């Protein structure tokens, strides 16, 4: 009992101080994290070939390591590499025509140019998806939205984004319930593609009907929570103020990437 109330006090106390996610990188302003990762992700586009993209793809694990999220980040990123990256590479590399094929396999005759082009394309995509993955490991959308709200973005906008993320989860969960409900009335959902296709409508219809029917009620219940009140909202969760050195890092990274793009435009590379 006493330990339970002790836990409750500890829980409540976390709202009395800045959010501490236990690591300097993860404690960075989520907007700064977002800007830095976005800049890094698009930087390789400015460079020809695949080396720049490959370097960027190697930067992420390093950041993840320092941020203490390597365990979450690496397996996901490796999976992405193996599934998406490899497929993109093979498709591009195999079907780009050119002189001097490396080898022939029926109609497929990959060339060195194709391999280069495939690697560049696949790595560019991986640079962007790596940034997205890493962002979700470093910061949360919730804190990003809070940071934006503190800088003047309206609560309506941040609500739409946050609620959309949640509604994807909710729709999935409701679909599972409906799936069970329809199985219980004899609609088969396991088996060949035709059997599954017949189950499509009975499962999707109730899910979407419910979603539509609930929209209005959601809006009214949000209003009942004074969402539309005309006083400025306060925030229970306190984000750490942005440190000057975070800003310096952000400015440096953005400036470098900008320079790379300008350089590429004027033909340095």
């Amino acid at each position, binding site marked *: 009992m006493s330990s339970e109330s002790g836990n*409750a006090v500890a829980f409540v106390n976390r709202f009395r101080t800045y959010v501490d996610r236990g690591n300097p990188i993860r404690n960075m302003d989520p907007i700064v994290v977002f800007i830095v990762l976005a800049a890094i992700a698009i930087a390789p586009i400015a460079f020809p070939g695949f080396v720049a993209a490959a370097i960027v793809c190697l930067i992420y694990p390093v950041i993840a390591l320092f941020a203490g999220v390597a365990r979450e980040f690496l397996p996901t990123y490796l999976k992405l590499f193996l599934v998406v990256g490899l497929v993109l590479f093979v498709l591009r590399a195999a079907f780009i025509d050119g002189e001097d094929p490396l080898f022939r396999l029926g109609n497929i005759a990959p060339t060195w140019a194709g391999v280069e082009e495939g690697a560049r394309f696949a790595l560019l995509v991986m640079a962007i998806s790596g940034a997205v993955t890493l962002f979700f490991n470093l910061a949360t959308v919730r804190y990003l939205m809070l940071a934006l709200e503190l800088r003047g973005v309206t609560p309506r906008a941040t609500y739409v984004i946050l609620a959309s993320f949640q509604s994807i989860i909710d729709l999935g969960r409701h679909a599972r319930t409906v799936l069970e409900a329809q199985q219980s009335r004899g609609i088969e959902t396991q088996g060949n593609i035709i059997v599954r296709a017949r189950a499509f409508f009975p499962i999707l219809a109730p899910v979407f009907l419910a979603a539509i029917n609930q929209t209005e009620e959601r809006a009214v219940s949000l209003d009942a929570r004074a969402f539309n009140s005309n006083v400025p909202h306060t925030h229970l969760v306190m984000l750490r103020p942005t440190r000057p050195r975070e800003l310096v890092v952000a400015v440096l990274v953005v400036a470098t990437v900008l320079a790379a793009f300008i350089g590429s435009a004027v033909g340095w590379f």
Partner: protein
Amino acid sequence: MVLAALRGVSFTYAYTNEPALRDINLTLEEGLLYAVIGPNASGKSTLCALLRGIVPLFHEGELTGTAEIRGRNLLEWDPAELSREIGYVFENPFTQISGIKETVFEEIALGLENLGMPPEEVIDRVEQVVEQLELGALVAKNPNELSGGQRQKVAFASIIAMDADVIVIDEPTSQLDPESSDAVFAIIANLKKSGKSIVLVEHKMDLVAQYADRVIALNGGRLVIEGPTSEVFTSPLLNASDIARPAVTELAEALVHVGRPLSRTPVTRAEAAELIRARMKGGSRADRSR
């Protein structure tokens, strides 16, 4: 003070033909616990929505007659102000969780943040409500992962936290087991004791009889009867409208049918026990004297 005065109020939702409320004349006093009862589609939820201005402001339709809320015409209220004065707990627990908060504690705090309350006060207020509703075990949980019954309690707590003078509650116990239902009613009784006005839709008549000061019975959008709880439940008008009554009231009526009526019709179990006990004592005295 008068909470609401409805004179000749009818309301028809847009895109429907049948009015949801027909010619309602009703005065609600502040500081009381009103229960709204009636069969399906009798207009219970629409009446509640009207008190809070949800009809006709959110759900469009045609409103005739005049509705005054706290001395001011409903249509003259600033919607934001009205929503602050009248708290509203909806029936469906799944549409009331905001979906944007990480823990139950923050979910309950949302309304207070929106009202611009300083964080330290928000924390105190939420802690108070959590204790009052015994939600301690839930505070750290993700509100989006809760069961229907748990969500219902959190939605209720979120509105209680905002401390409106008037609270309208649409079926607060529909997803709850008997023990939790009793607990919710005990909290509602406490709110009333602290001076709140409460309007409640509820199907569990035994609980209504025990807790409500007055009952508003609707059928087919019309007012059947409004009055003190025991008066309404013993009225012949209810039976004619197929509206459920407390079990002990039905028992008393069955006793009338078998020719052994009680001295008056009870609406609560305590009342029924008292009446029957008096008769049992009287009966045994009569036996002895014989």
